[in-house]
């Protein structure tokens, strides 16, 4: 009798665990309406490095983070001061170069937003977002 009771308790616990695990996996690290960046707009640190001088780095993080450290040669362009910083970037921009935008950590949307505005507002092509952001670049420095 005791074993039957135990079996039923285990069965009930297992039944409750299945949707809980599903929810945990589905909602892990993100909320569902965040659309992913298309693969064609992403670039890895290795690919970006291979472009060498053919790439321009854009730092989409806040001013303080940029002041602390940044990819050598990167230009600061964030949405906090977009109107003021955009002309500075566009004056340095060169159509032959690929633009790589990065921000902090994968969950951050700043790089995606800056890349989108460069495409929409300045009508630039060849604008990419760095996969893994600043942290990934640091790791593979």
């Amino acid at each position, binding site marked *: 009798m005791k074993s039957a009771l135990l079996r039923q308790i285990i069965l009930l616990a297992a039944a409750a665990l299945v949707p809980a695990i599903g929810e945990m996996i589905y909602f892990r690290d993100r909320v569902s309406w965040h659309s992913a960046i298309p693969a064609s707009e992403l670039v890895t640190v290795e690919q970006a490095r291979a472009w060498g001088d053919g790439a321009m780095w854009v730092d989409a993080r806040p001013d303080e983070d940029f002041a602390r450290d940044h990819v050598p040669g990167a230009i600061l362009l964030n949405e906090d001061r977009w109107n003021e910083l*955009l002309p500075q970037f566009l004056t340095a921009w060169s159509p*032959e170069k690929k633009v790589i935008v990065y921000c902090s950590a994968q969950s951050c*949307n700043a790089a995606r937003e800056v890349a989108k505005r460069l495409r929409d507002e*300045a009508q630039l092509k060849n604008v990419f977002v760095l996969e893994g952001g600043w942290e990934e670049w640091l790791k593979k420095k």
Partner: protein
Amino acid sequence: MKNRILVFTLSIWLPLVARAELKWEQSQVELHPGAADKEAVGHFKYQNAGDKPIHFRSVHSSCGCTTAQTQKDQVLPGDKGEITATFKIGDRTGTQVKTVTVETDDPAHPSTVLTLKAVLPELLQIQPALITWNTGETPQPKTIVVRPSKDFPVKELKVSSPSPEFTTKVARDSGSGEFKIDVTPKNTTHPSATALTIQPEGSPKIFYATARVMPAPPSPATTPATH
């Protein structure tokens, strides 16, 4: 039979006991800040509806532009409080969705995602923000279109170029309310650039567009002749 009834009762009762004790008045807040606002602040109110104290382990936001603060680290049973999320608007436009993840020692709901949605007004749309000429190209005017938002009609636009290398001419289409800025470089014999300032009449906010005569593209590398 008695055991089956006991198991059934337990299966109903246990989850009720283990339910989340921190109850949120709302987990989503929508804000409509004004054109002059620099921040949008969302208040997420909660109450500890359980019988044990709850402690906040961490509160972090999805973006560097949003900060979140708790009033206290511990919430006693029956206590109320709120988490304040402050979104820095900066020069962002459109609808912005930022999240704040709250982690507690509540075993039923250790993590809660709060959503702050800010619908930001867009004063002007400038298309494109960059116009270019190639070196040696005929220095003909190129046009930038400025579309004021319906909520913020603009009667006049002040446009100027800090560089004397470019001239501008502004025309307003009274029907659509759009402005057309014709930009002309004095010449295209050498590279030059300017950041045009665009200021709606009566607004302290300045917008920019860039005009450039581009340097000649690098010539393809020539390989030395071999004999």
